């Protein structure tokens, strides 16, 4: 049979966003793929050059719309390094707790979409239903359900409300029970194994060479987790294990993500215990003028000269739900960052599709690409 190119995207149920996977197939066998990105490019790096540091946080929520707090965290860590600001410890614990809750929410979103790609819609509803509880938690202290705008350079916007830790504990307890249910729907089903075992294999050396990170890399047996290897915030204060698998296939990624959710619950519980015992401020002192709560006009340029703010470069790499995200912030002493550059884990993970997709069947594309956990918002930025 002759070969043909099939465009899977930009409007296609498999893509979960706006991107195009061009596939060369022979019969049902994939011969070559060519990802095309850029349909959702909003120029966030360019817009950031025109904004105050704290105003960029509103962009971060929109960069990755399923893991907003993780991306806020990413930018905040880099910006604080560039601006030489140290947040109070309580704020760091709140950030870590938020990032881990966000990781669970993001993985639940992934679980929903991934299993729906396999043709099973029930887990989609279960996952979204349970993710809603985490969004409720977020809403109770950030005020938003999707765009949180919660973290600030030097701390967080507000302290946790009364009774939050109690409710959060209830929610994570409830979620732990649900994780069992998810596994019953997927791992206990032979069809799931028939569909996922041995698909999209990307072994560790190749994964490293192609820059693949996150659950995809850990499913190949690597123990690389920036939370352990290069602890940022207060990750060195909490105990957790790195989830790994050895199969390097779709099932392995499923197992890694499921285990990560359980480990996240563990971290959240430790953070809650700490937060219960250590009340305190959540915002740092000694902030530059434009990082305080109200953003008043600076008046004239001479102000900056009079204050002589230090310049700096900040680099933060954090373990985002999709992989290793990075931010590189150049502060030239002005109100706005001179340059902001983000590393999107999803872009690189998709890019490696050239390596892990050929040889499988057309019907295998949804599970394989689903296991990558594509979020086009952060990929195109």
């Amino acid at each position, binding site marked *: 049979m002759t070969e*043909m190119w099939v465009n899977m995207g930009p409007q296609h149920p498999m893509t979960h966003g706006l991107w195009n996977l061009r596939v060369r197939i022979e019969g049902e066998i994939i011969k070559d793929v060519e990802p095309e990105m850029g349909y959702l490019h909003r120029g966030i790096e360019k817009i950031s050059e025109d904004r105050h540091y704290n105003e960029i946080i509103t962009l971060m929520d929109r960069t990755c719309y399923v893991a907003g707090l993780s991306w806020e965290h990413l930018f905040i860590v880099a910006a604080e390094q560039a601006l030489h600001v140290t947040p109070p410890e309580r704020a760091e614990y709140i950030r870590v707790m938020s990032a881990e809750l966000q990781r669970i929410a993001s993985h639940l979103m992934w679980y929903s979409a991934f299993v729906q790609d396999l043709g099973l819609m029930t887990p989609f509803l279960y996952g979204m239903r349970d993710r809603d509880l985490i969004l409720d938690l977020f809403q109770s202290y950030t005020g938003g359900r999707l765009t949180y705008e919660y973290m600030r350079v030097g701390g967080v916007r507000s302290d946790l409300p009364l009774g939050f830790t109690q409710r959060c504990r209830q929610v994570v307890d409830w979620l732990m029970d649900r994780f069992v249910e998810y596994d019953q729907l997927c791992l206990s089903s032979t069809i799931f194994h*028939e569909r996922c075992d041995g698909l999209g294999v990307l072994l560790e050396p190749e994964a490293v060479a192609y820059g693949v990170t996150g659950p995809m890399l850990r499913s190949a047996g690597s123990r690389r987790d920036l939370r352990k290897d290069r602890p940022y915030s207060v990750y060195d204060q909490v105990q957790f294990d790195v989830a790994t698998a050895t199969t390097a296939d779709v099932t392995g990624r499923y197992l890694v993500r499921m285990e990560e959710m359980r480990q996240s619950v563990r971290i959240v519980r430790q953070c809650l215990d700490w937060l219960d015992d250590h009340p305190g401020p959540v915002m740092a002192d000694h902030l530059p003028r434009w990082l305080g709560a109200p953003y008043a006009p600076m008046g004239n340029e001479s102000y900056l000269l009079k204050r002589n703010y230090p310049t700096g470069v900040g680099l933060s790499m954090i373990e985002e739900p999709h992989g290793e995200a990075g931010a590189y912030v150049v502060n030239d002493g002005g109100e706005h960052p001179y340059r902001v550059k983000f590393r999107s884990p999803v872009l690189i993970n998709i890019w490696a599709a050239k390596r892990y997709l050929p040889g499988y069947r057309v019907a*295998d594309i949804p599970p394989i690409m689903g296991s990558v956990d594509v979020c086009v918002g952060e990929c195109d930025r």
Partner: protein
Amino acid sequence: MSNVSLYSVAYTLSSVLLGALAHLFPAPIHGWLISGTVVTALAAVIFAAILLLASMLNTILLIWYERKLLGRFMDRRGAMHVGYAGLLQNFADGLKLFRKDTVRPGQADPLGFWLSPTAYMVTSLVIFGLLPISTGWNGGSLPLTLLLALVIFSFAPLFIFLGAWASNNKYSLIGGMRSAAQMIAYEVPILLAVVAVVVLAGTFDLNTIVLEQRNYWFWAPLFLALIVFLTGMLAEMERIPFDLPEAEAELVEGWNTEYGGMLFAFFMLADYLRALVGSILVVLLFLGGWTLPSYVPAALTSFPLAGIVWFMVKTYLVFGLFVWVRASLPRIRTDQLLRLGWMRMVPLALLSVLLAALVVLSHCLPLIGCVPSMGG
């Protein structure tokens, strides 16, 4: 009530209508109108109209039933706003589809493109004329009803492939080829499972098959055949976990990607018609049709139209089984599907034929014991 049949109802209606009409006309036309030929012809038309109406209403009700049931499996509600508990939602959807433009892609072949939805729909509808719903409530008793129904049932891949090819779309083409491969592969185990039933019943007439189940329903001796038949029917109906031809994750909407508006509605309706036919066949072949076991109190079986009521209850329960499967299983891949069909289902079906033959020869059942009237 047993002497009331669908045809007698249609005939009565026809003669009453024509009798009333005839009074308006002078003698020659009057006499011609009340003549036997005309009344019979109109009765046939009314008969067909009733069948069409009943099958369509049932199909739409089936869609509603699936939506509600699936909703509960997924911890949600399903359709609930249009009409009582959303009963009219599907009519609203149908109205919306009816108002939509049907667009044919420029490069698509017109004849195949327009023909295939219609043919798919019509072939699915024709089967209803053959299926007995209750005593007397059928289109006529042919000696080979079951075989004819199955033959018409297996026309579908032809028209699906025709439509897929004609729409000149890569997704449609892949979907159409998958559909053809899948349906042809699962014809074999289905027919073998039916052979087991026929061996036990000794006839191809659906009426007789149901009557043969008066002592025991065939699912007990033919449990293997039932499993094979259910699996095969899932594949024939293209429902999850065997809905590869329209696997929406990779093939958008499979072979009906290019169809919109009423043509899509035809495909959709025909799919559910086939689902209804499949459920009815399961009830007829394995679950005793409209009969109930003898230990059931007579009050439950003697009210008017009891046969039809029990028949529909059974049909909907069987369809609920399909919905349950849909709510809990993911879709499998083409090669796995074919492997399952050829390497698991065919041997199982052959085994069940053997079992049926053994039951007939020994006149005995594993649990129920020996029954003298067994084996047709």
